[in-house]
């Protein structure tokens, strides 16, 4: 990267709470799902949006995963405004991997149940126009862009739990290549609907899902008056669905993320990864780092999982007595995606 990149601010929303400090408390207890009392998950009530930023019609028309995302994005508005950048220099990238089909599908399912004699065409004839826009992830991005005045490059990603990494890397590249000076990265978990379980029907391996969202503000400059910064020091991604190759791909991804700082795994103080992923953990067997993960507090957050972990790393870096050092975040999706993100917590004097 030919330009420094800082994570200046973050916002989270999940079952543990809406502040990073909440993720250090007692884990919430998964509750039975409304549509299936046998299954438990960490669901969230639909958040209320700030009426000074978003039109009230948005609250009514956007599906819950979009509302969670908007709620997080809104909380970064002051930090973004403080950068005093022209709107065209602010990029927006998003990870919104829908898995429940658009809400109108479920509305229609309900309507068919109530009025089975009616034709679908009659049932859908009065669909509110705004529901149409829930077909497209770009509509949620547009609400963010409009409210927070981001008119630079834009990109939406939907590769399930890997989408957060895609969105974050895209934001880094837009800033590094000077297409933007700051970027808002927003993400949301899937909604807890039957579709989520239909698509992952392997009960033996079924995780405790959670609903949540996370948003980050990246910039080429650190916050004014900051003494401690969190810098993006490297990233890489790879893919292999072949069990024979997957560890080699994971190893290569980690090496590439470390290479720009000329580090090896042993130089990293903190590791953020899913401790239940035996393949992933096997890559770190010989170099014990301080291992962290918030997944027990939040449930599996899908696309917003990585960004929640980044937000937590930022929180740790600003704690009293925080020691500068590197944190390596490694993700490994069930589909075969690998991702690695290297963050450096540093005293700003280094750049004075």
């Amino acid at each position, binding site marked *: 990267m030919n330009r420094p990149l800082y994570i200046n601010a973050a916002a989270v929303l999940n079952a543990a709470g809406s502040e990073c400090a909440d993720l250090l408390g007692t884990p919430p207890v998964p509750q039975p799902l409304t*549509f*299936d009392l*046998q*299954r438990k998950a960490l669901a969230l009530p639909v958040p209320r949006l700030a009426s000074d930023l978003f039109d009230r019609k948005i609250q009514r028309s956007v599906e819950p995963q979009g509302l969670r995302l908007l709620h997080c994005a809104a909380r970064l508005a002051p930090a973004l405004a403080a950068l005093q950048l022209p709107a*065209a220099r602010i*990029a*927006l990238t998003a990870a919104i991997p829908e898995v429940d*089909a*658009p809400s*109108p*599908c479920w509305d*229609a*399912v*309900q309507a*068919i*149940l109530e009025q*089975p004699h009616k*034709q*679908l*065409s009659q049932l*859908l004839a009065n*669909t*509110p*126009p705004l*529901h*149409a826009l829930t*077909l*497209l*992830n*770009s*509509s*949620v*991005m*547009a609400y963010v*862009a*409009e409210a927070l005045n*981001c*008119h630079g*490059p*834009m*990109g*939406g*990603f*939907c*590769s*399930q739990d890997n989408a957060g990494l*895609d969105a974050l890397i895209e934001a880094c*590249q837009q800033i590094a*290549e000077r297409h933007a000076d700051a970027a808002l990265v927003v993400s949301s978990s899937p909604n807890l609907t*039957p*579709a989520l379980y*239909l*698509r992952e029907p392997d009960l033996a391996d079924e995780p405790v899902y959670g609903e949540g969202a996370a948003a980050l503000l990246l910039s080429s400059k650190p916050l004014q008056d900051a003494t401690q910064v969190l810098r993006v020091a490297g990233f890489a*991604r*790879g*893919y292999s*669905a*072949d069990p024979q190759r997957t560890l080699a791909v994971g190893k290569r991804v980690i090496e590439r993320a470390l290479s720009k700082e000329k580090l090896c795994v042993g130089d990293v103080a903190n590791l953020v990864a899913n401790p239940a992923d035996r393949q992933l953990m096997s890559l770190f067997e010989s170099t014990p780092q301080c291992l962290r993960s918030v997944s027990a507090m939040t449930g599996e957050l899908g696309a917003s999982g990585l960004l929640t972990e980044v937000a937590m790393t930022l929180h740790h870096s600003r704690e009293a007595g925080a020691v500068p050092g590197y944190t390596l975040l490694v993700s490994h999706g069930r589909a*075969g*995606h690998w991702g690695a993100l290297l963050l450096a917590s540093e005293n700003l004097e280094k750049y004075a």
Partner: protein
Amino acid sequence: MRAREVYVSGFGLVAPMALDAATLFERICRKQSCVREHPRFQALGFRNSAAGFIDEAQWQKIAAGFGGNAALHPRQSVLAEYVARQALQHAGLTPADFAHSRSGLFLGANKYCADSDDLQRVSRCMDDAGRVDLDRLLDHPAPSGSAFVRRVDQQTQHLADWLGIRDCISTHSDACAAGTMAIGSAFRAIERGEVDLAICGAVELMANELPYYMFNSLGALCQADLPAGEQSRPFMPDRSGFVLSEGAALVILESAEHARRRKARPLGRVLGYANVCEAQKMTSSSRDGSKYEECMDAAIEDAGLLRSAVQHVNTHGTSTQANDSCEALALQRLFGECQDFMTFTANKSAMGHSLAGSGAIEAVLSLMTLRDGVLLPTLNYEPERAEYPSLKFLSEPMRQSINVVMSNSFGFGGVNSSLVLGRA
């Protein structure tokens, strides 16, 4: 010259009534529309049943070309593989070439949409309190094609596994701009040296009843009482909305070094790309077209060209009042006097609007224009009634050798993107 030049070495395409790029190109040259009355829309009693759709005869051929049992896969994956096979063959590549190179896959797609059968099936598994009986649903799994069991990135996953891609895989969900943005992202990945070889484009199957209702309720679909093939009328004063369509296109991009090393014959080049978010208004752009202009200007600048170098523009041209007027104003202002030496086309006049698919399909048609020196006509366009006469849309195909084409995609929610393509 850029640090790393990006060549196009192959492409594949399926559109309504066309199972390959040459057939589609030929159809448009003959001014044959791909829009028809959709039997499903007719059966449901829709007021306007015009659509571009891949029919069962086409699906049978697509399924026959699939490597596995097509019935076990969602149609998006089957279609993606069919188009990818065309693109690979065109480029003289095999899946092993992707597995053994630094390679990437960039695919545009929007949400899967449940159809009435999906909805009926799920409604049968609801109890009196309106709760879905999940176990009952899981005990009686829906067919693999059902929207409720599909993931929006399933075709990406399928192609990645088939090709053995190992470096970069992403699914872009940027509404009508997703196909163009996928190509743009692949271009950037090669340019920055992240990968040497990429397959990129979009797969979109949205010509079904739910998207119809959604877009119709927005007033975005054509309402004119005209024969199906005449409903998509980009840039004409009597345009009244877009015609829903579907399709897929994939393009092979590679670094110039990679192409030279394997002695590949380039078909064209990607010269520049830009994407700009405007979020001016959810379903339409800044009325003066300034944001579209900004996007096109940025793409030309990215290509290191002067505006006068662009000889032909493949417009987004959806046939809605708002889009076409914004785009026309933007084109007029951006190109000024250069318009006299330029031509324009609007492929959606022949195919309808396949959302994510449209940008990728139009990029392929633009590359064919560069390669073959044939400018495509805009169907249903009458120059004598033109609302924007300074923009020379052709009503007949024209043979003319050109060097640079711009292809635009402007999506719902203000996702704007432009590609600048050059002759090999």
